[in-house]
């Protein structure tokens, strides 16, 4: 007989970062009575921005499931209970990361326990080496599946091609199911809550006209280099360099406490069919233009298909919102808490200017930074804008921004 069991709760953690207050229960991966081991995925949840699995952190048996698939539950809610043997050390919760986990200043997301829905090699001891047909092994390698972890339908339990194909189909179907975007109403509600919180911050805006000629020249240079980088990638490129030299702008402000963040994680606002998504280019100041462009392209695809993982949307330290493609001449964006500031990039407008006594035509963009006054003041924002203008007006594909500053 096993020792008397005690139960520990599986709790919904804040997987989705600052936007997340609740999550949709998409699908249970276990049933009552199932024996699970630590690390085993228990349930697929969908937050406003990403799909994730909640994993068990202890070995045990599923004793109760508290919420049905399709339900929306708040962070901190008990999703299930796991029965563990009394002799085992029992942590406070059996679910994934606790929601009060302190945020690290490196900008690393507090997303332990949540992970993107990728096929993952199952762990099995080498001693239990399974029979796998060569074709199944090859196909599994192509699909990123560990064939040895599958149940084989061939003679002596040999894993066959059809077993791999069917596992791949199931994984795809699971991805599709979990990818079902939350109903727009839910998403809008999450946005509304977040924006209301944003509106509570004392925000102010500072604008500056920037000569866009260098950026337009750079576009041609980029085309010649066969790099698929958009003008916005160049802005992110330049912004990340300037942020690295302007730590007061690369900060989080929570409950009036300002925290400068070492990592430069630039959020890029993307309009998707499901609404606004703000995936993050992590460590942008250390990425070259091509790498930034590749990452924004990947994030854009993921945002449009609903495939953004928690790591893709967490930990932004600054956001760039670009409405240039719409021909907008000027706009102010709303700061996204806990970030300190956001940059609004409208379209460039041709203006007449004097250049050494000659009248010339120049493309000019009116950049606007909106900031949380609890984190930064007007002079700091103005200095940031001046550095950014200098960087953009002398923009080079290689450097992103000149290192020397004028202040």
């Amino acid at each position, binding site marked *: 007989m096993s020792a008397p069991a005690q139960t520990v709760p599986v709790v919904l953690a804040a997987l989705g970062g600052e936007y997340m207050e609740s999550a949709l229960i998409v699908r249970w991966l276990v049933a009552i009575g199932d024996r699970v081991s630590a690390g085993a995925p228990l349930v697929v949840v969908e937050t406003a921005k990403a799909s994730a699995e909640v994993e068990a952190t202890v070995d045990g048996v599923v004793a109760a499931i508290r919420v049905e698939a399709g339900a929306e539950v708040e962070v901190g809610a008990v999703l299930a209970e796991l029965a563990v043997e009394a002799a085992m050390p029992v942590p406070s919760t059996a679910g994934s990361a606790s929601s009060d986990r302190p945020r690290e200043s490196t900008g690393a997301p507090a997303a332990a326990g949540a992970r993107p829905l990728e096929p993952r090699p199952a762990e099995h001891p080498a001693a239990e080496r399974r029979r796998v*047909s*060569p*074709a*199944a*092994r*090859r196909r599994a390698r192509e699909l990123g599946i560990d064939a040895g972890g599958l149940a084989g339908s*061939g*003679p002596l339990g*040999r894993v*066959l*091609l*059809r077993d791999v194909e069917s596992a791949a189909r199931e994984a795809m179907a699971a991805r599709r199911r979990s990818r079902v975007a939350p109903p727009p109403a839910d998403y809008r509600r999450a946005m509304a809550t977040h924006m209301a919180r944003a509106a509570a911050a004392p925000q102010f805006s500072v604008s500056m006209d920037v000569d866009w000629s260098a950026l337009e020249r750079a576009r041609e240079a980029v085309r010649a280099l066969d790099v698929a980088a958009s003008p916005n990638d160049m802005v992110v490129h330049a912004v990340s360099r300037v942020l690295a030299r302007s730590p007061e702008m690369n900060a989080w402000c929570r409950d009036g406490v300002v925290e400068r963040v070492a990592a430069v994680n630039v959020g890029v606002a993307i309009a998707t069919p499901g609404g606004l998504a703000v995936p993050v280019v992590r460590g942008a100041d250390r990425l070259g233009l091509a790498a930034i462009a590749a990452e924004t392209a990947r994030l854009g695809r993921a945002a449009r298909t609903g495939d953004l993982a928690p790591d893709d949307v967490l930990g932004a330290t600054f956001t760039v919102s670009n409405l240039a493609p719409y021909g907008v001449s000027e706009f102010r964006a709303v700061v996204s808490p806990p970030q300190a500031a956001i940059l609004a990039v409208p379209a460039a407008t041709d203006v007449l200017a004097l250049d050494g006594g000659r009248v010339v035509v120049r493309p000019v963009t009116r950049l606007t930074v909106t900031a949380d006054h609890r984190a930064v003041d007007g002079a700091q924002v103005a200095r940031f804008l001046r550095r950014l203008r200098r960087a953009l007006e002398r923009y080079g594909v290689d450097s992103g921004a000149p290192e020397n500053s004028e202040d």
Partner: protein
Amino acid sequence: MTRMRYAEALNRALHEEMARDERVCVIGEDVGIYGGVFKVTKGLRERFGDLRVRDTPISEQAMTGLAIGAAMVGRRPVLEIMYIDFLTLCLDQLVNQASIVHYIWAGQASLPFVLRTQGGAGAGAAAQHSKSLDALVAHVPGLKVVAPATPADASGLLVAAIRDPNPVVFLEHKLLYNTTGEVPEGDHVVPIGQAHVAREGTDITIVASSKMTLDALAAAETLAAEGIDAEVVDLRTLRPLDRETIARSVRKTNRALVVNEGWTTGGFGAELSAVIMEDAFDWLDGPVRRLGTADRPIPYSLPLEQAAVPDAAAITRAARLTLAG
């Protein structure tokens, strides 16, 4: 296209090649006056004379030597060995002379020589007249070995063999002579060394040649009724083997059954199995299965002969087992 029997297709090819090239001559037992026991050489002696169509005594070793000598001095002989069972008598001439001439004279000599023979069981011809010895000749470098399954391939490959500058062993099957098929008109040549997919399928590759190709095609129809979509690769040439066509098919179907009418142990099926393992291992979803004749002399009794030698029913069973393996 003209519909004709396998034997007629061979006969027409011989007529055309002898008319096209006066160096082409025919040597063998009963090939002249009698026109061949399977009528493949019918009408040749009447048309081309007894100098170019030579009836010989029953002396396989001597007539093989005669043919090889004729080839060495510029003729293009087509030798008929009536039964493959008596090919053993020719092996010294074939293996120690014909196959190495081109090599030992460093390419300065060539040997345009075709050895036609027929084998196979199914006629109640007993242990001395029913063998399939494909593996014996396919083992030897310097020989080309073809084993056509259809009248069209028989005709096209015989023309290619006669025009080839070096020895070609041409394997016919006694049960194929009366099968019929469409044969293209004109200068119809089937290149040596090219297999072809006789039936496309997705579930299993059956590799066969000669009569086994027809049995495999019949088996594929039975399998189709069971929902198994078999692909049949007809080798046509055993040496040089068209490994690419075999591998391409197995990479598609992931399963392979190899069929050869010769004895199973050390037979040509073993070669095919090894080739598949070498070229398509990572695409195999189960072991390659080999089907050949039981390792014993071919029985005279028809029911026992049928039990010993693969046929469409045996191929069907083997294909099911391959898919279950």
